[in-house]
C-alpha cells in the first residue's frame, strides 16, 4: 500500500487518479482557488499568502471570507450544478485542514499537501487526517473575482 492510501484508507479501493507530480509550490487552498504558484495559509508569522483584507485566522469563517472574496457563496451540497464551480472545506475540531474543488465530471480534485494532485470521490478524503467536510461553496463558472492587490 502506498503512503497516500495508508493515510486515506478509502483510496485503497483504487477509485482515484494521481494527476500531477509532487511539488511544494502550492497547497490545496491555492489549488481550490485556481492557483498553482503559491502556498495559501493564514499562518501567524505571515509567511504564506492570505488575502490581505481577510483575518489571518485558522477558522472556517476566515476561509469562507477568503473564498467569498473570490466570488464564492455558501452552497447546500456537493451535487454538481450546471454552470457552477464548487469547492469543499474540510475541518477538524473547527479548524480547516483541506480544500477540494469539483471538476466538470462531478468528481473532485485535491492537492495533497506537498504531494501530488489527485482526482477522487469527495468523501474518500474524510478521516483522521482531514476530518470531515464542513462547508460547500460555489460560484458561477464565469464569475471568478480577481483578488484585490495587497498593500
Amino acid at each position: 500500500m502506498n503512503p497516500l492510501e495508508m493515510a486515506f484508507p478509502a483510496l485503497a479501493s483504487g477509485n482515484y487518479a494521481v494527476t500531477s507530480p509532487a511539488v511544494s509550490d502550492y497547497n490545496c487552498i491555492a489549488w481550490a482557488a485556481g492557483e498553482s504558484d503559491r502556498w495559501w495559509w493564514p499562518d501567524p508569522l505571515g509567511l504564506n499568502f492570505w488575502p490581505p483584507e481577510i483575518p489571518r485566522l485558522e477558522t472556517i469563517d476566515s476561509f469562507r471570507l477568503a473564498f467569498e472574496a473570490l466570488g464564492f457563496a455558501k452552497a447546500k451540497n456537493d451535487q454538481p450544478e450546471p454552470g457552477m464551480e464548487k469547492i469543499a472545506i474540510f475541518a477538524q475540531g473547527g479548524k480547516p485542514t483541506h480544500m477540494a474543488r469539483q471538476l466538470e465530471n462531478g468528481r473532485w480534485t485535491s492537492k495533497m499537501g506537498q504531494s501530488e494532485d489527485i482526482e477522487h470521490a469527495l468523501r474518500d478524503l474524510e478521516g483522521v487526517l482531514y476530518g470531515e467536510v464542513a462547508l460547500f461553496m460555489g460560484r458561477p463558472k464565469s464569475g471568478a473575482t480577481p483578488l484585490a492587490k495587497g498593500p
Partner: protein
Amino acid sequence: MSLSTLAPPCQLAALFQELATRWRQETAFLSSTTEIATHPAYQRIIGFGPQAIPLILAELKKKPEPWFWALTAITGENPVATDDQGKVQAMAKAWLNWGHENGWLA
C-alpha cells in the same frame, strides 16, 4: 539513535536528517503551515538553534520545502518580499541569498 537524546555537534547532521525524514513523512499530506511547523521533529530542529541554519539552508538548496518557519524562528529574520509570500521557490531563493550575505553559505 534515540530522537530524545541531545546530540553532540559531530552527530548533529545525522540527527537533523533523521528528524527531517520523519517530518517529511508525517506532514507530506498536510496543507496547514501551522501543523507542518509544529510537528515535534520540526520543533526539535528549531531547538538546535543557530547550528541548524547551515543544515536547513543546505536542504533548501537541494529542494524548496517549508523550512521558512524554522529559519524565521531561529534567526528572527524574514528576508522574503511581501509579494513573494507563499511562493516557495522565491522564498527559498531569498533565504539562500540571506545565507550568503550573512556568511552561513560559502
